[in-house]
């Protein structure tokens, strides 16, 4: 079943993430992909995540497709201008890639090529508009194309951004520009997330809650301090601390599973996007404990 059809079927949709490595050794990444095969509705392939140069998302999407997984091509506006983006979208389409996640992309300042010229010729909202026109047989300038794309396009949102109002206005723009699904930044406060969903439910889009696996109390504190839009509540940090060093990861898996279960049981949103960040092999365990496998 395709990613889009999974939503239409009404099931609780689950996606996770595969990060292309730096360098051509893809053994480990393929191993993770193999573990996820058959368990997910789709798998995101990141696009030079955190502005760190790696294998391009499109190549890995194609490999996953050949393995029988359903990839979501993450596409940022940091490294390509509007010609490059459209050209890559057409390329992805003929390779059989059906899903695309449109993002602006972390600034080069965050990565390992800080001297790079940031492109940002267009940004996330405009990229969604571009996908829309390619789907309708025209390039963004309105030129007729020979054959159109048929992407299922999505976007990201940070429900805990502060201030949240401009973020929600941008969310609305993304909906208007054609986003069909949203994967959110990591959420840890389900009650607060419900407020966002109440707003988002006004729009005909699917919402996948972002679940980032907490691997240690230190990681939680780090994210609270340095990652915009992520708030790990103190009681969760205490819970991990109480488990000690040995039990931290296991507790993190429990927390993620518990949140997923609550989101599903209370029908809060349409599914989850699990980001294990370096612990992709733990995704099946999270899903199992959440009762998804």
């Amino acid at each position, binding site marked *: 079943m395709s990613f889009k059809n999974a939503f239409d079927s009404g099931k609780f949709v689950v996606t996770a993430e595969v990060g292309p490595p730096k360098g051509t050794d893809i053994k480990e990444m393929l191993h993770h992909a193999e573990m996820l095969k058959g368990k997910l509705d789709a798998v995101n392939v990141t696009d030079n995540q955190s502005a760190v140069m790696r294998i391009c998302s499109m190549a890995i999407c194609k490999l996953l497709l050949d393995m029988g997984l359903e990839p979501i091509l993450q596409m940022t506006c940091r490294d390509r201008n509007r010609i490059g983006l459209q050209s890559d979208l057409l390329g992805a389409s003929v390779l059989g890639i059906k899903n695309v996640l449109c993002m*602006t992309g972390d600034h080069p*300042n965050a990565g390992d090529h800080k001297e790079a010229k940031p492109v940002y010729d267009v940004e996330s909202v405009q990229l969604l*508009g571009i996908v829309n026109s390619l789907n309708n047989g025209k390039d963004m300038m309105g030129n007729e194309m020979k054959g159109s794309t048929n992407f299922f396009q999505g976007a990201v949102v940070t429900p805990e951004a502060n*201030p949240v109002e401009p973020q929600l206005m941008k969310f609305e723009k993304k909906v208007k520009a054609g986003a069909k699904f949203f994967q959110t930044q990591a959420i840890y406060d389900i009650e607060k997330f419900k407020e966002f969903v109440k707003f988002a439910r006004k729009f005909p889009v699917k919402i996948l809650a972002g679940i980032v696996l907490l691997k240690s109390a230190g990681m939680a504190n780090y994210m609270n301090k340095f990652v915009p839009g992520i708030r790990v509540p103190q009681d969760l940090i205490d819970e991990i601390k109480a488990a000690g060093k040995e039990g931290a990861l296991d507790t993190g898996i429990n927390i993620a599973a518990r949140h997923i279960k609550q989101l599903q049981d209370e029908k809060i949103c349409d599914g989850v996007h699990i980001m294990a960040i370096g612990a992709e092999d733990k995704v099946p365990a999270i899903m199992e404990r959440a009762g998804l496998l």
Partner: protein
Amino acid sequence: MIITAKRDFQELMENIKNYKSFFLIGCSECAALCGTGGEPEMKAMKEALEAEGKKVTGAFVAKTGCQVLGTKVELKPFKDALAETECILVMSCGAGTQTAVELYEDKPVYPTNDTLFLGNMTRLQMFDERCSLCGKCILDKTGGICPVTACPKGLLNGPCGGTNEGKCEVSPDIECAWVRIYNRMKRINKLEDMREIAKPKDWSAHKKPMKLNIREKKEEAKK
């Protein structure tokens, strides 16, 4: 004004190591205000060069170094000093440097400064970049705050996920341009305007090298 910063002196010395005599050209406008090309800086440069065993044949602070003809006229009295010098050092912006390149075709010309940005002077010797000279102004749509300049990504449709308590992900020293715009639009009752999707920017409005010939336009209008 055009904001400049002094280049590293050792780097400059490396660039000019093969020359013995120099003529210095400063600028009384931006460079003087930036402390990179006014009278005091010129005096200091002369002393520094002489301390390195170099000869300074003359020095002059042009009124407006980017005015080619005006600077040409101003430099006439320095004909001999300019003829004598092996090399010209320009202590203003990249535009001023290229004025000298145009006026003295046979002399090597070196910049002593890096040219940084078009800046607003917020206080004495404090400068902020607020306009990127993009060629197509959008301030009418953004409450008068330019996101092309104030946002490191130049976003046109609102803040990215990196916005953080009003600060930017790139640096906590940067105010999030879109939070500023949001607050301003709210204050002036224009929040509804923020809902409109901004189309991709027309970057062809700034096709390098830019040229503007008002004189020709006026003459055409007369016809």
